[in-house]
């Protein structure tokens, strides 16, 4: 069966490509010379910051967390130490290896502009980059792509595009499929069928292009292809690896978004082992697979891992935690200047937000802005349109090596 990749190549030779290019103003994978890979991982459901990056040095940590507290570093199943005060959850050994390589920033007590406790509004604010959950139909990452004037393109890993990457700039999406490729002739006919329907025509062209790229990156790698079509963590790892290769490809996108749900641990959250630990173990492997796929391009990469808000400081009545405010986030990558960024408010009740949550002291948008400047080489004035009305959140400097 002819592949879409072969079709595109043939199309270019036959002149079909010219039609294709004409139909796709502004869609090109030619990267801006200064742009470096930026990947955003959104963990939906409110990841427990005090579980994933335990502040074991805080005198109130053990008591507040009780049975789900992570033990101090050193002992069995203890935290993986970061700086003598914060640690990483023991289910994150690969991420900890990045810390030891100086490639991990842990941002703690951080939050977007959102201060209520609805997941869905919280995710909207995290992704639209504003202060309000509604009224903005585009995401900050799409607006950032817009600010590069088409020099940088984006990719959603999954069938559909999450809000953070939606907007006026066309963005592709990709997930492996278990069904056979579509014949080139049918694609041509669909293109004609959609000639009066601009949105569907645009999707079809983006889809064709991304599939060809993905296929090219997986060509000759039967193992990755097989795993990508399978199930569970092996599938996610294979997707991450392929995505890494696409981002490293000279004609590939430079920005990608992954999102994953399942972090809403109201009951039976577990400590060093259990529900949250199981999920973190998977995340650890997927992040590392991304590094594998990026190969030498990893040294220029930054990955932002974030969530809509944190969870309560205290354990609730069902050995879990309820919706909170301050959270933890990570920036990891070969380009990253590793450290802990935390203006630590303390866990004692009097230091908490509304008496129950970790008080946010670092604006997550400052981190995001800093990454846009560094990775996409955006001019600083562009930030006003990417994150409108948030001038007080100054971009964080020196997140990545120069």
């Amino acid at each position, binding site marked *: 069966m002819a592949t879409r990749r072969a079709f595109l190549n043939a199309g270019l030779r036959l002149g079909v490509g010219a039609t294709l290019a004409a139909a796709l103003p502004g869609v090109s994978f030619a990267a801006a010379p200064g742009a470096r890979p930026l990947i955003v991982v959104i963990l939906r459901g409110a990841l427990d910051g005090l579980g994933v990056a335990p502040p074991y040095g805080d005198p109130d940590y053990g008591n507040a967390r009780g049975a789900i507290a992570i033990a101090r570093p050193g002992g069995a199943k203890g935290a993986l130490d970061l700086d003598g005060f914060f640690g990483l959850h023991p289910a994150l050994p690969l991420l900890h290896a990045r810390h030891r390589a100086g490639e991990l920033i842990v941002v703690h007590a951080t939050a977007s502009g959102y201060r209520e406790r609805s997941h*869905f509004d919280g995710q909207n604010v995290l992704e639209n980059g504003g202060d309000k959950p509604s009224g903005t139909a585009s995401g900050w990452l799409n607006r950032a792509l817009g600010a590069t004037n088409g020099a940088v393109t984006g990719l959603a890993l999954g069938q559909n595009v999450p809000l953070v990457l939606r907007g006026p700039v066309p963005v592709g999406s990709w997930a492996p499929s278990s*069904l056979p490729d579509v014949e080139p002739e049918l694609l041509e006919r669909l293109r004609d069928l959609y000639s009066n329907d601009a949105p569907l025509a645009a999707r079809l062209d983006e889809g064709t292009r991304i599939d060809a790229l993905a296929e090219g990156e997986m060509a000759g790698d039967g193992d990755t292809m097989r795993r990508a079509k399978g199930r569970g963590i092996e599938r996610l790892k294979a997707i991450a690896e392929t995505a890494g290769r696409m981002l490293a490809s000279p004609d590939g996108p430079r920005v990608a978004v992954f999102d994953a749900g399942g972090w809403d641990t109201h009951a039976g959250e577990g400590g060093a082992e259990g529900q949250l630990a199981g999920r973190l173990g998977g995340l650890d492997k997927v992040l590392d697979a991304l590094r594998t796929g990026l190969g030498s391009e990893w040294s220029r990469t930054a990955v932002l891992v974030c969530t809509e808000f944190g969870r309560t400081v205290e354990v609730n009545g069902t*050995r879990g935690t309820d919706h909170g405010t301050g959270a933890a986030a990570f920036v990891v990558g070969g380009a990253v200047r590793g450290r802990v960024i935390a203006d630590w408010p303390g866990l004692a009740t009097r230091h908490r937000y509304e008496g129950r949550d970790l008080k946010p002291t670092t604006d997550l948008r400052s981190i995001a802005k800093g990454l846009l400047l560094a990775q996409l080489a955006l001019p600083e004035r562009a930030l006003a349109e990417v994150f409108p009305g948030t001038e007080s959140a100054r971009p964080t400097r020196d997140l990545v090596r120069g």
Partner: protein
Amino acid sequence: MTADAATNAAIAANRFGLGAKPGELVALAGDPRGWLIGQLAGPYRVPEQLAGLASGREVLATYFAAREAREAARKAAKGGDPVKELVDGVREQLLPHYLAQAAARTRLALASPESFRERLVHFWSNHFAVSIDKPICLGTAGALENEAIRPHIAGRFIDLLLAVETHPAMVTYLDNQQSVGPNSEFATRAHRRGHFQSAQPKNRIGLNENLAREILELHTLGVDGGYTQGDVTSFAQVITGWSVGGGKGRLAEGEPGTFVFRRQVHEPGSKTVLGRRYADGGFEQGERVLNDLARHPSTARHLATKLARHFVSDEPSPALVDRLAKAYSASEGNLNALYKALVSADEAWGVESRKFKTPADFVQSAFRALEVEPKDTKKLLSGVELLGQRNWSPGSPAGWPDRQADWDGADALMKRVEWSVALAERVGNAHSAIATADVALGPLAGEHTRTALARASSGSQALTLLLMSPEFQRR
């Protein structure tokens, strides 16, 4: 049949229903609005496709028993990986029930001559979403839909609300079964024994606010409906004791798998929710709060907005939302009055199809148009799984999103093409694409699409083009 009548028939079957089956457009053209409203009349009868499914009570009781047996065996053996074994055990026990429930629901959706009713069932099931990524929901999601939702979609919202919030599926999905009032008898006793808020937090017991928050945010008032964190906490106290019999540990009394009110964990005393004081009365205190929530203007607006968005457009006009909210409030929360207001609104009958089909809409309408119903359960369910909408798996209590931008990713479209090719190849040349366009879309199928079908290089290619046409991708 006049042109208008034919168009309205196609809109009724596709926008309001689950997609026209052959013959349906002709049959309902006389009175499309009457066809819709008529589906909601009369008492609820269990559809034949659902007969023989295990009840939620049976599924949970079997599951609790199996879990206890497994744990006992594990304790005796003292080995293995307890977490993995437990998860595997849950799936093993519950997956057959999930597959049977999902298959029955799908077969009903494909066969039903009352597909407006079925669409409303799916709508409310998504409004009150539970998700199978929480393993216990594999066994309970279908039961929630069939036991709490189906019988109540054409009555008063409060009855639907009460049935859902007291169904074991919702109680366990949102963790209320273990939520304990801090001053309840149970907590007081535990406190005396030194367990409550003790230095041994393993035994710490107290509130879980998950169910209370989602009732306010998702099921009734809506996120901007005017409640505070204080209301959430207070309402969580009100519904302490709303639990499920069976399970394990100290809170297992009661008939396994049924809703149980546990007075000993209920937070005593009066509570204030949304500025109103509710005297204590055990279970009935929560019932009174739910009654007031169902009557609240924010709830009317929230439900009206979601219904208009589902049937008319991603951003429905304020006028339509007002009209629906008024119909809801004026009828004191009668859902039939709400549906009648929707069906009688001119805006809902615009010729332009403004709703992009979800994967489930697309797969069901394709199967219905082609009268295809795979015998094999796996094949029956694989379409929605491949296209990203496995039954009852929205991943969060907010349910599946209902706007085009959530479903029209480039990759999503490519997968629809791939799936359409596979389906068209399977049904081969048994269906003429032009004839199928006539029975499925009628006058909604435009000239450009008809020309493309006529020029296709094979019968199966023509069918693929029909399924992927802009007209068939929207409703």
